[in-house]
């Protein structure tokens, strides 16, 4: 384990403690490492790969340490509301960002990327699914639970498909659903392992998976927006602004594109 990993682990431990309410007594060991030369970014789990690359670019260009902590947007929102010491929040979901802006935790938020829902099937496409219309033919379909963004977007896709392919489409698909996973990576894992025949995930996640094939859904056009905002309590607001500039700029957008994200509409 490198020194940086240890550093990150300590930070995360400190954050866990503070989000558990025990931070008052023990928070000091968590906060001591957040010097002026450190940018702490909380990012939605689906941004992990892209932000890891962006963070190392930023680190190299600015000569500062970037601590990246990824989790579900909801979990990150809770951490921020519990006073987690961070500078920047990138959310996969507008609802959580709006709530944080409204409550004054985040100064203002802007869209920096868009996602795209696609159908994934195991490599070799054993169920022979060519378009979304074939989805009811799949024996086991896995979706996100309705509470998480990927689950609610999947239901939007199914609703639009119902309008396109006729009434009953959504319920025929739902009859094939065997699991409602709590995050998009787990949805994808079930297809990668060949346990599920099909799933609806973000293109960005499908890009990182090797054992799946992607079926695009151009006619359905569900494009969730990713928001980024600087925390009100940021210790390094200047660095955070510069990271946002990187995200919005051509270099950042190129990295995001390579990881399967689209530009803001």
């Amino acid at each position, binding site marked *: 384990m490198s020194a940086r990993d240890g550093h990150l682990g300590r930070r995360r431990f400190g954050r866990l403690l503070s989000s558990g309410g025990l931070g008052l007594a023990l928070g000091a060991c968590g906060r001591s490492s957040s010097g002026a030369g450190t940018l702490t970014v909380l990012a939605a789990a689906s941004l992990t790969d892209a932000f890891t690359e962006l963070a190392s670019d930023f680190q190299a260009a600015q000569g500062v340490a970037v601590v990246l902590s990824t989790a579900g947007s909801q979990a990150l929102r*809770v951490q921020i509301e519990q006073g987690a010491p961070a500078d920047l929040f990138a959310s996969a979901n507008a609802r959580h960002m709006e709530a944080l802006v409204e409550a004054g935790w985040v100064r203002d938020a802007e869209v920096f990327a868009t996602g795209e829902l696609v159908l994934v099937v195991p490599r070799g496409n054993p169920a022979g699914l060519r378009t979304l219309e074939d989805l009811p033919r799949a024996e086991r379909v896995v979706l996100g*639970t309705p509470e998480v963004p990927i689950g609610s977007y999947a239901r939007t896709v199914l609703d639009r498909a119902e309008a396109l392919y006729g009434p009953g489409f959504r319920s025929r698909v739902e009859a094939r659903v065997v699991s*409602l*996973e709590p995050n998009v990576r787990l949805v994808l894992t079930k297809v990668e392992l060949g346990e599920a025949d099909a799933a609806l995930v973000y293109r960005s996640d499908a890009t990182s998976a090797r054992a799946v094939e992607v079926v695009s859904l151009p006619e359905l056009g569900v494009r969730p927006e990713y928001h980024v905002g600087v925390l009100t309590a940021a210790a390094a607001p200047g660095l955070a602004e510069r990271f946002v500039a990187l995200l919005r700029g051509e270099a950042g957008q190129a990295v995001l594109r390579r990881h399967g994200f689209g530009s803001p509409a």
Partner: protein
Amino acid sequence: MSEPVLRSRLGGPGLVLGLGLLVFLLLPIAALGLASSPGELWAALHHPLVLPALGLTAWTSAISLLVVVVAGTPLAWMLARARGPWARAIETAVELPIVIPPAVMGIALLLVFGQRGLLGGLGVDLPFTPAAVIVAQVVVAAPFYLRSATAGLRAVDPELLLVARTLGASPRRAFLRVAVPLGLPALVNGAALCWARAVGEFGATLLFAGSFPGRTQTMPLAIYAALEADLRVATAIALVLAVVAFTTLLLARGAQRWLAPPAPGEGGH
């Protein structure tokens, strides 16, 4: 009950450290309790995810416990009686699921029982079924029973078994009528730990069985699903689980005391 002569009075640092840990352990649970108003608890009980999850958790964990006790007691006996480095290696190996992250155990189970798993060709279709929930619970929770049961059975005086054998008891009868009753407190202790671990099982279940309300979504998975929607609902559901688990474990503890054979020095009462 008479007071033992040596009372466990610890002054100074021992007391501070011990009480410090006690507070540290109980504070998060207390915070969980304080986070929910009675009204929220009532609402949590009626949350659509809760009753199916509670029912599923109850019956799957009961079957898991039954499987572990029925198969685990003979295994613990064999482990307790076996000698030599191989026996110790096997004893250590069966404890590995305690160390391996449950999510990894879930993947490992898929590698065995999944569509493309080692036994996938046998037509066993476990993933996404309640049977998969039970398999996950058994794999993750059994080591807790085995550990306690092996230690308890090992402590049984071999002389007593020898006496039973010389009086004409078969090995099976000596095991069932002498070793099991004497080891019972340890077996009950192990069973309680095993059940508790099965009820709290999350990672292996999520990976191996998936999460579908009423079919594979146990309480920990329901809490996690609720967490994504509303933190307060999730903490209230968690409190419901904590209360159910506390009551059950307290009963098991009572049973353990009741089953304990009188210690040599306490023979009088």
